[in-house]
């Protein structure tokens, strides 16, 4: 929004006072109209701001309208490309076909399971692994933060496997655990463990020493300070870790379900690709993406509710 433009008022109103030029610089003739600064000068300055915004702060203003517009344009292009037959339906089926698949798979199912049951199996794996990871990784991370010995023991393990792509150790997991439910949950669990443990550790490190000192000078014991100061102070970081972990887990899901699953969103997409059912593949991808977005939004909501003091 350029509030420099006042098309209704500038025509009738007297010309604004021209800012004095620096001494010695020659007047710029034939560049700008006498009332408005030159286009060039306007572009050089930051856009002026609405009340409540900071002048010059990068990225001022709302962007949600543009985002909605972008989504609409992408869908429009998709529709146009299929309608005008620029692309064969085998490579890119029409939005209507994908929507039809969404209805059909919801009702009748694909590969012996309805969409809801695919979602159910996938969620079960992700959340099962998530609960296990939270219950184990958060205590380990806190221990790494407060205890030198624990940090020394766990640090090399976590730091070594953390950057490995889950697909790299998937074969090993299969050799160890077979192709049942446990290997899939273990793979997702491992993907979630590192970000959770490291965020809990960072959370412990973020406690202000003054807060710990204050608690000790109120007669607190070590155990009380761990439970009533360090743990709550680490909560914002732990919740951020949970959010990242859920994202990791969701992305690892397809990999985990590639290993001989009989249901699940990843399995559905994979088996659809074997039958060249591109419409089901795209429908599955969209469902996976929308669910991930909903999960993330839910975690952000939880963050706002549980740690409203974060960043304050």
């Amino acid at each position, binding site marked *: 929004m350029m509030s420099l433009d006042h098309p209704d008022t500038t025509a009738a109103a007297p010309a604004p006072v021209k800012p004095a030029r620096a001494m010695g610089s020659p007047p710029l003739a034939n560049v700008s109209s006498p009332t408005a600064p030159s286009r060039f000068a306007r572009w050089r300055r930051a856009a002026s701001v609405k009340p409540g915004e900071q002048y010059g702060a990068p990225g001022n203003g709302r962007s949600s309208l543009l985002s909605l517009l972008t989504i609409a344009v992408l869908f429009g292009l998709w529709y146009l490309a299929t309608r005008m037959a620029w692309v064969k339906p085998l490579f890119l089926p029409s939005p209507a076909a994908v929507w039809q698949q969404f209805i059909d798979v919801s009702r009748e199912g694909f590969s012996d399971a309805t969409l809801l049951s695919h979602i159910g199996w996938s969620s079960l794996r992700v959340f099962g692994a998530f609960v296990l990871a939270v219950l184990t990784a958060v205590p380990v991370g806190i221990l790494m933060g407060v205890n030198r010995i624990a940090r020394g023991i766990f640090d090399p393990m976590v730091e070594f496997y953390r950057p490995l792509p889950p697909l790299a150790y998937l074969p090993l997991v299969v050799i160890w655990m077979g192709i049942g439910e446990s290997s899939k949950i273990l793979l997702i669990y491992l993907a979630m463990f590192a970000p959770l443990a490291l965020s809990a550790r960072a959370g412990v490190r973020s406690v*202000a020493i003054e807060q710990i*000192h*204050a608690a000790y*000078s109120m007669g607190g014991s070590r155990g009380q300070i761990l439970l009533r100061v360090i743990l709550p102070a680490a909560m914002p970081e732990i919740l951020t870790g949970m959010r990242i972990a859920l994202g990791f887990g969701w992305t690892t899901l397809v990999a985990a379900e590639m290993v001989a699953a009989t249901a699940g969103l990843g399995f559905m997409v994979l088996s659809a690709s074997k039958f060249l059912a591109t419409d089901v593949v795209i429908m599955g991808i969209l469902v996976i993406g929308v669910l991930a977005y909903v999960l993330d939004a839910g975690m952000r909501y939880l963050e706002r509710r549980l740690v409203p003091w974060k960043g304050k």
Partner: protein
Amino acid sequence: MSLSLRIHDVSVIYPGREPGQQVTALSGVNLDIAAGDFVVALGASGCGKTTLLNLMAGFIQPSHGIITLGNYQGEVPSDTRQAPLRDQVTGPGADRGVVFQKHALFPWLNVLDNVAFGLKLRGVPRKQREEQAMHFLALTGLADFGKHAVYQLSGGMQQRVGMARALTNDPHMLLLDEPLGALDALTREKLQELLLNIWQRTGKMMFFITHDVEEALFMGTRLVIMSPRPGRITHEFPLDFGRRFLAGEAARAVKSSPDFIALRETVLAIIHGDHLEAAA
């Protein structure tokens, strides 16, 4: 009651950045704080005043010398590491409340729960601890803010919560580490007066750190001036300006009286002398 805090020939030496190097943060400090004392420590940064406070709080241990809090009056052995004296300060405890420069409140608790935190640690029942916390919130002028989140309060109010939190534990003494340092001038003067009133009402021993000369003279009953490299106490002055304020004289009148200004200039000269020395 002859309760007092005694600092006997205390030095703090820690290893410096380079190997073999040693930094003397405090050297040969002696200071007795008796019941009813309001001791103000003044000095430029690096003079060891926060180190001294941390020693009293028990957050650090002296390299040499000892600190006692109680009624120990006897001789002090040179090495007490093997067998601490009965009243020796060997760590932090609820008998010494600390108010920090940056409030150090717990943002996950509301104001009331912050103030009642120490009582909760001791297992005082909810109703009782909230009553006591409310008493000290009222004393610091925050009776209506018990249910507020601490991060919604202004800096001055946060510091008042910090004071109420320390007082609720009923400590023998209050250690205040530049509690008003980050506040604006107006809030700062109001809180100076509030602290003097609290001191008068509760009779706690006070140890108050500041780098503001006017504040130092106004607040206490005794002023110790500290000097850096190595940190040590160089001067001590008795003060009565705070008492004059408590006796009814206006704060600004006290601070602009001739004897106040005279002492202020004396103290400033001492501190500037230190600065010149340090720069040379």
